[in-house]
Structures are given as structure tokens and as C-alpha cells.
């Protein structure tokens, strides 16, 4: 395609692609004013914001504790399974469920080698995300910290292309972690401002990342 023809197409796109429809700016302002300056908007953004803030605060604290427990459980179970003889590590399968188990066996076999890597990755990511607010506040979100985030971001992308991402819930979690880690990596360029940190924290809360991370760690541990 000739360059000038492509440029012409893009100029046309500037006029036609997702052409903005003029909004009611006054109505938008009323919502902003009510939320920021505390207007009386029943059931509006302000109320939801306060409830969300209070809920998220406790969810965050609970998630931090549970992740610690989950990571601990994984480490313990991995340690135990490494010490067990191979025959003892094979779970007993009843005759009735043997056929069902055989069907799912192939799928789980494909993902098995990734479980350990996934578990390690989830633990490291949880540790990084939980420590992030304190690291930023203490001014320690330095090159080394960002470099850990870069490594984890790379691992996320590799896992997204692996059988470990076959499970839709796990895939969604990887995708959300990819976005959050990309924001952490950007902290370096933005010099770790509080605004950036708030946006990351909000992304974590909006997507329930930490509770889902904890659940994933517990699931892998249980399997």
C-alpha cells in the first residue's frame, strides 16, 4: 500500500472512527460535583464510593493475611510432595470415578509441569503487590524493584501462552496481573507518584486481584 494512500485513510479515520457524540457536559459536572464536593445525590456515585472504600479496606487487609497463608500452604505441600515416594504421591481413585478421571487426566497432565512454575510465580507476584504501597511510600520502588516487576511481567506473558492459561479463571487472572504489573513497571518512568500508586491500588481492588490470587494459590495447593 502506498504511504500517501494509507495516510489518506488515516485522515479519514480521524473524522469517522469512533466519532465522539457531544455529551451533556452540565449533567456530567453535576455527578462530579456531587461526588467530590459532597452533593446530595441519592444512590449516586458518592454513596457507592464510600461503601466501596470501606469494603475494600477490609478486603485488602484480609487478602494480605490469606495470601500469606496460601503461599505458606503451597510451600509446605511442595516440600511434602518432594519428600514422598512416587507411589505414595499418586491419589487413590475409586472404581466408580475411574473413567471420569481418565478423561480429565490428559488435560491435567498437560498443565502439570506448569503448576510448580505458576505457583512460584503467583507467590512472587503476591509478595510484590502486597509490598508495593510500602515500597513506594518509603521511596524504595527503585530500579531493582521495577526489575522484579519486569521479570514477573515477562513470566505472565509466557504463562498466558502456555497450557497453564487454559483454565478461563486462571487466564483472566493472568490478564489482570499483566495489566497491573505493566502499571508497576511504569512507576519507574513516572517516578512512583502517589497518583500512580493509587491507580494501581484501585486496579487491584476493582478487579479483586488479591483475593483471586489467594484463591488460585490455594487451588494449586489443593491439587
Amino acid at each position: 500500500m502506498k504511504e500517501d494512500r494509507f495516510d489518506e485513510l488515516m485522515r479519514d479515520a480521524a473524522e469517522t472512527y469512533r466519532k465522539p457524540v457531544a455529551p451533556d457536559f452540565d449533567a456530567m459536572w453535576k455527578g462530579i460535583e456531587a461526588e467530590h464536593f459532597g452533593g446530595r445525590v441519592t444512590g449516586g456515585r458518592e454513596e457507592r464510593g464510600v461503601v466501596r472504600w470501606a469494603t475494600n479496606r477490609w478486603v485488602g487487609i484480609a487478602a494480605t493475611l490469606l495470601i500469606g497463608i496460601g503461599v505458606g500452604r503451597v510451600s509446605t505441600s511442595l516440600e511434602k510432595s518432594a519428600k514422598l515416594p512416587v507411589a505414595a504421591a499418586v491419589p487413590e481413585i475409586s472404581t466408580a470415578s475411574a473413567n471420569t478421571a481418565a478423561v480429565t487426566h490428559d488435560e491435567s497432565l498437560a498443565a502439570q509441569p506448569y503448576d510448580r512454575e505458576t505457583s512460584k510465580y503467583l507467590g512472587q507476584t503476591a509478595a510484590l503487590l502486597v509490598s508495593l504501597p510500602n515500597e513506594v511510600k518509603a521511596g524504595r520502588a527503585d530500579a531493582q524493584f521495577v526489575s522484579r516487576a519486569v521479570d514477573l511481567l515477562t513470566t505472565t506473558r509466557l504463562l498466558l501462552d502456555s497450557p497453564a492459561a487454559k483454565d478461563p479463571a486462571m487466564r483472566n487472572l493472568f490478564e489482570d496481573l499483566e495489566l497491573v504489573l505493566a502499571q508497576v513497571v511504569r512507576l519507574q518512568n513516572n517516578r512512583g507518584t502517589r497518583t500512580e500508586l493509587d491507580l494501581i491500588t484501585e486496579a487491584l481492588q476493582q478487579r479483586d486481584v488479591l483475593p483471586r490470587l489467594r484463591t488460585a494459590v490455594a487451588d494449586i495447593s489443593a491439587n
Partner: protein
Amino acid sequence: MTRLAIALKTNQVSEPEIISRVLAGDRIAARELYDAHSSRVYRLAFRLTGDADLAREFTQDTFVRAFSQLARFRGDSALSTWLHRITVTVVANAMRKVKRFRERETDLEDVHPISSDNTGVDPVLRERLARAIDGLSEIYRTTIIMHDIEGYTHTEIAEVLGVAEGTCKSRLSQARAQLRATLADLAPELES
């Protein structure tokens, strides 16, 4: 647009002055700031989402966050750059959830109608280009929308996205290359 908003746009009132008034709780100053920047923030949100309701929601979120965090604005960049950075982040954070929901509820093709201006470009070609832009990954789509569609400079995009200017140029080049590759089967029509 109010007089102060016009004055702000024409540099008759300095940004630090209006910011300090907003920080002091002056609602009128906050409204002036909103009037001066809301149009561009909304345009960006609309271009990134293609949905008027979402664009309104994200514009409101952007200003609510901006006002609540204004004390932390250090003036390292222009206020508009800071606002657009919040906009891009707000949109990126929310769109994955929206996209997931839409994938379950409806066909994405029904969401973004293409306007039909008579500019001489074949409507099929226009539609294909729009779909190709939609199909780009987030970083490339954001870059090409900001540069080619909304007219931001590389310097502005680099500041908003927190990347080096060279990275921004490289992403734009990659995005264009991907669009050309996607439209490769239309090459004869494009040459005509």
C-alpha cells in the same frame, strides 16, 4: 464555556492559580478547570472506548480522581497531560472488565457504529480499517488513536503513557505496519 475557562485556555489565568483555588475548595474554579479540559478528556475517552455512556462515566471518574489528587500534582508536566494520563489509566483499568462482559452479552461488532461521512473513502474500506484498529493490542491502539486520530504529538503521548518518545514512535510504526498487514488483501483497491 465560561469566561475564566476561556481565559485559562488563552493563558490569561495561570494553571497554578486556578489549581490553588480549587484546592481551597472553590467550586467555581473547579468548574472552570472542568470546562477548560473536559472536552478533550471526553474525546479521548470516547475514542478509546467507542461508547458514549462509558466515555461519560470515565470522564467523570477522571475528574473526580483529579480533584481528589490535585494536591499531589507537582507541575512536572502540563495539567492536561496529567489529566490525560489519568484518563488513559482509568479507561485501561475498566475496559477489560467491560470487554469481558460484552464478550458474554453481545457481539463487539454491534458496539461501535462507523459514521458515514461522505469523504470519498469506500465505506467497506473504512469499516475494515476500523475493525483493524479495534483488533490492535491495547498499547498500539492507544498510540495510534492518540497520534493519528486525536492529533497528540509524540512528546505528549510519551508523557501521558510514561514511555520514552522513541518507544512511542516505534509503537506507532508497529501499529501502522500491523494495520497495513491486516488490510493487505485490499491492496488493489487501495492503490486505485
